[in-house]
């Protein structure tokens, strides 16, 4: 099982990570962040495999760490 460390206040809601995740772990949060966007959120964190694809495609380095 994997785990991501997300800095939700850096996310600009491009959702490229949502598309990149092979397990469809990520989705949109319904609370806005400091920048005024609806950031991503791990909807199904238990399914994360720690492949770090979300972190690699994130242009804003909002996903700061990935553990496996």
């Amino acid at each position, binding site marked *: 099982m*994997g*785990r991501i460390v997300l800095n939700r206040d*850096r996310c*600009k*809601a*491009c*959702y*490229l990570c949502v*598309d*990149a995740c092979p397990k469809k772990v990520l989705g949109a949060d319904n609370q806005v962040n400091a920048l005024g*966007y609806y950031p991503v959120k791990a909807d199904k964190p238990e399914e994360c495999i*720690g*492949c*770090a*694809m979300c*972190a*690699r*495609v*994130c*242009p*804003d*380095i909002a*996903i*700061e*760490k*990935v*553990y*496996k």
Partner: protein
Amino acid sequence: MEQLVYKKPDSIKDDFKISFCPGCDHGTAVKLVAEVLDELGVREKTIGIASVGCSVFSYDFFNVDIVEAPHGRSMAAATGVKRSKPDKIVFTYQGDGDLASIGLAETIHAMTRGEKVTAICINNTTYGMTGGQAGPTTLIGQVTTTTTSGRKAELSGYPLKISEILKEVDGTAYVARVTLDSPAAIMNAKKCIKKAFEAQIKGLGTGFIEILSTCPTNWKMTPQEAHARVRGEMSEVFKPGVYKDKVSEAL
């Protein structure tokens, strides 16, 4: 026991502020350059050259010393830095309007001299920072704020193919065009960027990377649609691939 498989590169400042629009590939490109600097272990002796354009705020996120060059003159500034401090690793981070339009003379001449620097060029077919005007790489038929009915070849010429031009320049040691539209493409881009830095480290000549990037704001697309455009019409005109590789030959 949890194992760390990915972390923010050390070559990105801890209090960094990515100033790009949502979904812009610039952020990914910056991150890849930082990851390569980390992997090569050269962060402490690297000097970056920021250019004018969206890349102007490079000093806000790169955790290396940065010189701000006048518009288009990044390769000239890089030449000065590298020649006065030959033991440093020098790279420029430029857009296509900066490198291929106003700075084309500086770029070609610095590469003709085979300056031992690395140039990263973000090609997004438009002038992003100033509001989406037509640039040297704007595709035929592309609508921008200065080509409102689409770029016409008879009026404003053809898109400039930077990598194809620079591979013919004798001083370049590594020339590649990459995309960032999928995780696989991003991994490949990172490999190419690493080689462009190795070209400099091994003293073979200039390393050049052209990154086909998105500009969702000015293209008026979602980040996902913008990546589809990179895969589609942009890759048809600007064919991704390694155009010159003296680095592998030298091994």
